[in-house]
Each structure stands twice: as C-alpha cells, then as structure tokens.
C-alpha cells in the first residue's frame, strides 16, 4: 500500500504530522509496536530535517507484509559531505533552528540507528533523498 505526504519547509509547528499519520496506519495494520516505534522515530527525524533545511519535501510510504519502505525527498540545499553529516553532533542548523530545540546533529545518526537500511543521495543546491527500510519479520 502506498501513501504520500507533503512536508512544508520551515514550518516547525507541523513537523511530525506526516510521521504521526504513518504511525496511525501502522497501528491499524497490526505491525509490532516495537517496529512501529523504530520506524516512526526515524521518520520523525527525517521529517524534521526537511522542515529545518529544505524548502519543501515529500514522504512516500510503501507498506508491504514484509517491509516498510519510506522515501523522503526534498528540494533544498543538499548535503555536500554525507559522511560528515552522518557523524553524531555534526550540524549545519542555524542558531534560530537550534533555539527551537532542533539541530543537535543527531538526526541522521538517529535515523540510521532506528532503521534496518538507510540510503542517502544528495545533490548540492538541488535536494536530498533519504530512503528508510524497516523489515517486519
């Protein structure tokens, strides 16, 4: 089953609404609560990344009986050095974003921790695509 959600860049008050929708769906599909939690935590981090850094983005969710594949793609500045961005504590968030309690540099590492597979592709000044895969077995 496929679902698509849009993410608005810069609107922190709505950050988390797409992940909450996905959570509702997974609960209805009787997915193991522990897997739901991992998935939702990783999606929430990815969603906040789009809000904090990009202009706009989409979350595409594909649920199958054996796995959940989520692609979060955005139009934004892109990530010049993905390896560096994957390090805990590394952050390019602006002071304003940090003041709101975001941008601690834990986003991407936290996504990795809470997913079975994670793939990032990014083009500077174009955008970033994060793919998160969690297996249900």
């Amino acid at each position, binding site marked *: 089953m496929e679902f698509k959600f849009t993410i608005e860049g810069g609107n922190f008050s709505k950050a*988390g609404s797409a992940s909450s929708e996905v959570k509702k769906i997974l609960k209805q599909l*009787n997915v193991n609560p522990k897997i*739901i939690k991992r998935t939702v935590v990783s999606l929430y981090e990815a969603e906040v990344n789009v809000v904090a850094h990009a202009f706009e983005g989409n979350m595409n969710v594909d*649920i199958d009986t054996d796995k959940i594949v989520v692609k979060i793609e955005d139009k934004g500045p892109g990530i010049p050095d993905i390896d560096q961005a994957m390090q805990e504590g590394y952050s390019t968030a602006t002071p304003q974003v940090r003041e709101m309690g975001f941008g601690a540099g834990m986003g991407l590492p936290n996504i990795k921790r809470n997913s079975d597979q994670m793939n990032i592709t990014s083009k500077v000044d174009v955008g970033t695509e994060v793919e998160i895969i969690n297996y249900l077995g």
Partner: protein
Amino acid sequence: MEQVHFYHALKVVDEVCIGCTHCMNVCPTAAIRVKNGTADINKNACVDCGECLQACPVNAIIVEQDDFTQIFNYKQRVALLPTVLLGQFPDDVSEVQIYNEIKDLGFTHVYEVDGAVDVLIDSTKKFMHKHHQERPFISSFCPAIVRLIQVKFPALVDNIIQLKPVIDISAQFYRKKLQDKGYAQEEIGIFYVTPCAAKIAAVKSPVGEQKSLIDGVINMDFIYNKVLLSIKNSKKETKKYPENIHMSRRSIGWTLTTGEASRYSGRCLAIDEIHNVIEVLEKLENEEITDVDFLELRACDHSCAGGVLATENRFLAIERLRKRAAWYHRNKPMIMPEREIDLYKTYLQENIGIDKVEPRSILSLDSDMMVAMKKMKKINRIMKVLPRIDCGACGAPRCQALAEDVVQGKAKMTQCVFLQKMLTKEGLISPQESFDISEDTWGKSRFEKKNLNDH
C-alpha cells in the same frame, strides 16, 4: 482474538438516554455509538475515564456501585478514603465529624489511603534506579490512563512502573494488620470510597494483578450525602482536626496535580485531563519528547479533585486540601510517633510489585496484516464517498469511524444520511428503506408523528 470480559462501572440507563450523541463525540477512544436511539459503549475500547458522564445532558450515564449493605457481610469493615473526600465538605464541617459519621454508617475502621505514600515513594525511587534504562517512567496511579495506554499506545506499556498504587498498598496494610490481630481472612471486608469510575474498574478487573485486595467500592457522592445529612441533623460540636492522626503534606497532596511529580528527582512532568495526556503520549511515542524521567498522568482535569463522583467544585476542594495540609504541617508533633504503617513497611514493599501491563490495542483492523491491508484499502474507498463532515447522524462519531465499522461488519454504509439521500434519488433504495435505516439508528420513538401546532 480471545474474548476477555472487562468490567466497567459506567453504565448507560437506556430508559433515560435520549441518544443525543454528546457522549459519543467526547469519548477519547471512540468507544460509543448510537444504536436504536441509545448510546452503546464498546467494552473493549472504554477506559472508564468518565468523559461521557460529564457530557451527558440528561444524566443517563451512571457509575454503578456495590450495594452498601454488603459491608455487613464482614465482622471487620474497613473504609479506605481518598484524601479528596475531605476536601468536599463545607469549612464548618470538621474532620473528626466526617470520620465519626463514616464509622456511624457501619465501618469499624477508617483509613485515608494516601497515608501509604511514603512506602510507594521509596519503592518507586528504587524501581526507577534499578530499571533506569526504561526511562521515561509512567506512573501506574490512574487506572484510566493505564487502560488508555493499553488500548491506544501499546508501544508504551513497558514504561508503566510495575508497582501497586497507594489504594492497594493501604488495602494490603489493613488486611495484614487485622490478620495479625487475629481476624480471619473472611472476616475482613475492605471498601474503597472512590472519586471516579476508573478506580472501580481497577478493583473489578485489575491490570497486572490476579485479584484485587479490595472487597467492594462505594461511590464518593453517596458517602458525601450520607455524611453531610447526618452532620446537619446532629449539630455535635467537635474539634476541627483529630488529635492522634498526622497527615503529611506529601499524603494530602498526592492525588492532586504534581503530587507525584514533585517527589522525584530528574525531569518530572505532571499532566492532567485525558486529552492533554493523549497529546503528550503521542509525542512520547514519536520520541518528540526525550529526556523525561517521570510522568504523572491523570485522566481528570485537576486530577482526583475533578473526579466524576466529586461533588464540590474542584478549585474549592483543592484550596481546602491545601489549607488542611498547611494546618497539619504547622501542628506537626515535635517528635513524630511511629506510624502503624511503618511497622509493615518491609512486608508491604516485598509485595508491592505488579506484573507487566499487557497491551490490547483497539486500533488494529485485523491480527493478520494481509487482511488488515485489505480492510484499510476498503476504508479508504468508503471514505471517498462519505461527506467527511463528521455530523454523527449515522450513529458513529466520525465518518472515518463509520467506514471502519462498515469494514468490520458492525454498520452499514447506508446509515450515512447523505448516502441515503443519494441512493434514494437514484432509486437504489426506496424512501421506506431509508426511513427504516434511520429508525434503526435513532429508535422508533424519535420518528413518531408530532403535531407542530401543539407547540
């Protein structure tokens, strides 16, 4: 799925219910539907929060209670009181009078359950220290919240502290104390005076315990009326406060908001009112809130002072309890005499644990994921034809709820009044069929011919 019977104290009196949908629209777990003109509560989804009772305009929802005379089946009759009871009475009524009147009703012992808080605080600190990796800890205080987590937030059941609440600790204390005095188990009857429906459900079908330690429950408004009536008729002069009892500020404040959260170190949050709690649990589940150590969560607005069986305005009750706590604090004895409960502390702490709380999600559409996915697709298709205005005229709180009921075989799509009109226009159902469907939802009496000129 296995069928388990859940006891609920909240009951709809069909003869009184006018099927008005007020309760259906406020229920936080969408447990209510209107069928045949009356409200119907889904036992699996109800968490006994009492929102429906507060919303009912005709008092058709009641809190069922045990027959009072059953206390006389026991030789030793213990009344366990919540401290909020003492905040219900007018200022000129003394505590000594309240205690005496409750004894006059037939109880041989009266004990305020919040006297056991020190036992629990101590054990909670040890529990949190031992299981520190399971932060944030959620208090097991409010039975409605424990049930809410079971049905709506199954991923969070492991965060609930596995310790008995003070009511059960007090019950255990009193039972043991009387047994030590030589009374047999069957001679001892322990009764809790409850400010809410959830605590009744907790006694009748406990979570995390095999059997409740309490023999019966009496509604707080019942005791309030009885006590106040006899005080008004007797006019005996007594001292305002008893001489041989000391209640700490910790005890008196326990059932009020921040009563628990103020007792532990670290980041502790106190949240009251069930919708506020749901909002926080959603965030907790997404890990939008992290670095919290302890969560005090209560279903009622202003905690137990806002319980559905409280008679006094909650703000006035809280003010009175704060005054009471201040009085006891000012008049604290120089040397605190050892309290009876302290003699049993080791015994009580050895028996304070409860089992893990099991999740029982009401959200999943089917235990088989393939089937659940099919059902979800069907729901999404149905949602495309429903009006999405959540009018409630089908007897379900939202269009989404009707769609789910249809897929689960609990409702028919034609219950939607919009669809009925469309289908009638297309000639797919007759006006009579449409009328019959409405009668099924709203009851025959609602459609009896009324003469407009009579009014």
